[in-house]
């Protein structure tokens, strides 16, 4: 009784667990239950039950409702699909003028809008692509195919790689100084010499359209949300869901709306990249001290000046993190959107992975990462740059970079010209190194992989078998053994204990959505993989973070490592693990662990860093040992921050699990991938995406609520 009074929360939790386990044991596995096939698969089978809702027939295998809830939401994907098709093909037909046929044509409004959007995006991408690589689409857009046939000289030749490389070095120098310039020059040269120029420039042109557009839209919407409560309220749920929505899932509906190609990829990338930008813009603007705003007003700023000269610059730090995120998402999407026909390095990477050509995949992945790091650093340097306005420089000093670039252009063209005379075998290496003529290390890597496989095969296999048989499969079985009702009770109970009725209701709603969808079993598998990844990641991340924190240099080193790793597109992580473990669940899980360890480590370090220095000294003065200090002072105070890290770790892990479907896992991700090649996949893809997002949101809600209370309790904010 004493104990009960002392730790009431603890007993409440124990009680909840007791109920959960009691339910688990009380409800038996139905005899007819078999994993996966037990769920609705839209195949006709006389054993299935069916119901009709909103005119849609949903077929499913019926179980005891305590074991698995019936898929009452099964009509949702079909309904979404039909609505999309209706919107695209039948809704609001209107007369539109057609340039080519010179007559009015009837077209549904949405179709017309998406077509125009598509054309615009394509134009932008082609414009940049042709500056970098040459081509004639842009010229044609302004003239016509007939005209270009008559005037073949007008085809854009593209810039020689020497000019692009030197140009990016100059830009890097102007923005970030010598180090960055050297990095730019080296990585561009590497890309060219190793024969990755063309795909790299294709990817780059995609990024150069997607990133700025995402930035502008994100910033604009962020500002709008800051100014108007109503806009914010409208945006908020979308932002929340998009934060945990796997990027795969957006591909499918976009496929329906925009078709296949780079333009669709850009639009999807914007859909994914804009939300974090909005959130961070809003966060930054909110954090501007009111007195700074008043100082701006008293300086006589108009609303526009206040926003552009006071608010946004003062919020620069957060907005910068937003830019950083935008670039990361763009590179991630550069790979993922290869699924819907985006050209470039991502396509090569996927192709190579598909053929299990690890060497080629590695080369493509390296190039993406090099460019990603370059753009990331350049955008950072750009935002940190001070505008220098002192007017006492002469013409040459003011324009030295442009002049220098002019010289480079001339030299580059001359070089390319000499090259065309010198290289008789038909390939002008000073203009562009063709894809298959560069130095390739693919064979080396492939041999290496073979060697590793041959040498360590026994050990790898043994490890693999042990992990799968002794750890993963039992864990998976345990997850699937949970009756739906027990899970629901556990989640809702946790919500109630942490955040009261409100939290319980939110969490209940989210869980019910998944439980009533046709994919509960798959969701359980996804959750099991994510849980396993998160557990290991957190253990590693918290340990490494704590160890690194003991020393200032190792702290900075680790944060830098996290920065760089975070810049790699998520797909790149699959390369080395496939190298070692081939196509197994182990591969996916290891990729998940590596990927999700980044936020775990970073937030641990930052959490520990956020502990006020005064407390350190006070503790040291009162004769506390290092260990005591760590456990009694630093961990408790850093814990809220570290829990936010856990939040990120979960989101990262979920993303990677879903991406892992590419290697072949039996979870929600696999269905999303399937939906990609399904003509009616849009609804399924979207619903599946929402399911994954909701898994993330359940944890997000619980953790955030808990952190909020903890912070209030500790008096930090």
């Amino acid at each position: 009784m004493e104990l009960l009074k002392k730790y009431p929360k603890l007993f409440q939790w124990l009680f909840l667990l007791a109920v959960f386990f009691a339910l688990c044991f009380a409800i038996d596995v139905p005899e007819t239950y078999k994993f996966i096939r037990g769920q609705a698969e839209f195949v006709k089978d006389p054993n299935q039950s069916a119901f009709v809702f909103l005119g849609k027939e949903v077929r499913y295998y019926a179980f005891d409702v305590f074991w698995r809830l019936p898929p009452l939401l099964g009509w949702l994907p079909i309904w979404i699909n039909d609505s999309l098709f209706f919107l695209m093909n039948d809704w609001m037909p209107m007369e539109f003028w057609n340039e080519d046929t010179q007559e009015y044509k009837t077209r549904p409004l949405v179709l017309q809008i998406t077509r125009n959007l598509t054309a615009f995006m394509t134009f932008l991408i082609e414009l940049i692509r042709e500056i970098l690589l040459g081509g004639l689409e842009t010229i044609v857009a302004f003239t016509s195919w007939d005209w270009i046939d008559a005037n073949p000289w007008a085809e854009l030749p593209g810039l020689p790689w020497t000019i692009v490389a030197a140009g990016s070095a100059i830009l890097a120098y102007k923005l970030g100084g010598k180090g960055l310039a050297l990095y730019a020059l080296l990585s561009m040269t590497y890309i060219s010499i190793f024969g990755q120029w063309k795909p790299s420039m294709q990817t780059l042109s995609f990024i150069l359209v997607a990133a700025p557009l995402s930035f502008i839209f994100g910033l604009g919407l962020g500002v709008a949300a800051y100014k108007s409560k109503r806009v914010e309220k409208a945006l908020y749920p979308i932002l929340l869901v998009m934060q945990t929505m796997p990027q795969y899932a957006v591909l499918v509906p976009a496929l329906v709306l925009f078709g296949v190609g780079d333009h669709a990829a850009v639009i999807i990338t914007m859909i994914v990249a804009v939300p974090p930008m909005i959130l961070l813009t809003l966060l930054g603007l909110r954090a501007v001290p009111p007195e700074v705003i008043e100082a701006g007003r008293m300086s006589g700023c108009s609303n526009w000046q206040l926003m552009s000269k006071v608010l946004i610059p003062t919020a620069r730090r957060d907005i910068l993190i937003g830019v950083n995120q935008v670039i990361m998402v763009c590179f991630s999407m550069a790979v993922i959107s290869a699924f819907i026909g985006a050209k470039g390095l991502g396509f090569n990477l996927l192709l190579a992975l598909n053929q299990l050509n690890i060497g080629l995949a590695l080369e493509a992945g390296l190039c993406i990462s090099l460019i990603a790091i370059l753009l990331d650093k350049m955008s950072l340097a750009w935002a940190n740059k001070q505008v220098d306005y002192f007017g006492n420089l002469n013409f040459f000093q003011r324009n030295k970079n442009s002049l220098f670039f002019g010289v480079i252009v001339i030299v580059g063209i001359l070089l390319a010209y000499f090259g065309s005379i010198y290289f008789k075998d038909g390939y002008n290496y000073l203009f562009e190194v063709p894809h298959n003529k560069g130095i390739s290390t693919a064979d080396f890597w492939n041999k290496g992989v073979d060697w590793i496989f041959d040498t360590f095969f026994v050990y790898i296999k043994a490890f693999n078998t042990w992990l799968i048989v002794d750890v993963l499969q039992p864990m998976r079985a345990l997850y699937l053994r949970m009756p739906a009702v027990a899970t629901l009770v556990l989640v809702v109970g946790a919500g109630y204990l942490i955040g009261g009725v409100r939290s319980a209701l939110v969490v209940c709603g989210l869980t019910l959505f998944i439980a009533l969808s046709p994919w509960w079993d798959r969701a359980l598998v996804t959750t099991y993989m994510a849980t396993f990844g998160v557990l290991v990641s957190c253990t590693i991340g918290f340990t490494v973070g704590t160890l690194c924190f003991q020393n200032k240099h190792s702290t900075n080193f680790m944060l830098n490592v996290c920065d760089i790793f975070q810049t790699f597109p998520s797909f790149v992580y699959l390369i080395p693990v496939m190298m070692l473990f081939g196509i197994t669940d182990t591969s996916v899980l290891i990729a998940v662990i590596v990927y999700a360890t980044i936020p775990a480590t970073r937030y641990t370090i930052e959490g520990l860093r956020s502990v006020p220095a005064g407390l350190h000294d006070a503790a040291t003065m009162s004769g506390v040992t290092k260990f005591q200090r760590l456990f009694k002072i630093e961990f408790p105070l850093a814990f809220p921050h570290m829990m936010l890290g856990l939040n990120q770790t979960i989101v990262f892990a979920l993303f990677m699990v879903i991406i892992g479907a590419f290697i072949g896992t039996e979870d929600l991700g696999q269905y999303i991938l399937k939906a990609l090649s399904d003509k009616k996949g849009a609804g399924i893809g979207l619903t599946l995406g929402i399911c994954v997002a909701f898994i993330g949101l359940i944890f997000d809600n619980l953790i955030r609520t808990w952190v909020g209370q903890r912070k209030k309790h500790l008096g930090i904010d």
Partner: protein
Amino acid sequence: MSEPVIKCQSVYKIFGANAERMLKEANGNVDAKTFQENGCIVGVNNASFEVSKGEMLVVMGLSGSGKSTLLRCISRLTDATGGKIFIEGQDLLNLNNKELIELRRNKMGMVFQSFALLPHKTVLENIAFPLQIKGIKTENSINKAMDMVKLVGLDGRENYFPRELSGGQQQRVGIARSLAVEPDIWFLDEPFSALDPLIRKEMQDEFLRLQEKLQKTIMFITHDFDEALKLADRIAIMKDGIIEQLDTPANIVLNPATEYVRKFTEEVPREKVLLIKDVMDEITSDNMGDIKVSKDEIIENVAEKILTQEKTVAVTDGKNNIVGSINPAKIINTVFGGRKNNH
């Protein structure tokens, strides 16, 4: 006398959802408690006063008494809920956005307690900011800003960032920025409250020096009574949004209007506040010595001179005419005598 620069007539500021309706219903009889029960917070309650050209009005009161809110109303950073405010005869509350911006760009300068500098701009850029907002050419604005840097004694640091400066230096930047457009009206909201006492004293002296030179019309806010006494031409004492008393420092010390004000003045060393003219007597036929004191001297400065005399001392005005007299007993009485029942 010419028109007052700032003129407030029954200004109210009430925070809350239906503040305006509540104010109307209250009929000029605002009671903070009843308003609070209805979810409204009274920031400023029926403030009426005038500030004339070149005068420094110090608004004094404890934290939360509505000083900042009053200042915000007058600079229209927030709209007053009721009442009228005139700036040089213009009805402030009737200005449209454009006129308001014009007014701020040319007539008003403001200094903030937390300095409120733009973190991404250097000292020089911060000071030039209001000029550039006004659309003045870069070169001219930089030159002007450089003059301001010199005025507040920050030469050599013009290319520092705010984070590289101490608190006192940051506030100098704040002051320079507020003066860059050469405003006629200068608002200062607890400008020295965040500074260490030593630096604060230094800044106060510096501020008086500047004011001597510039002769702005000033509203200065502080919660420090000593600071108010040191700087003010007149002091307004606020409590719960109400101006309890608005008068010269001497009158506030000598004739506190309310119990609240009296409590403030209790501990104040009179000789530092009162002038000879505040305590002098009529011209008497007594035998007066050769020594004369000016009526505008602070007692502290001439006390010794008078006390060493055995007789009554003549008091003169600026033109050396005798306008009154004072005897040592009076001085002793003022300094040490019953603080509760003067006169």
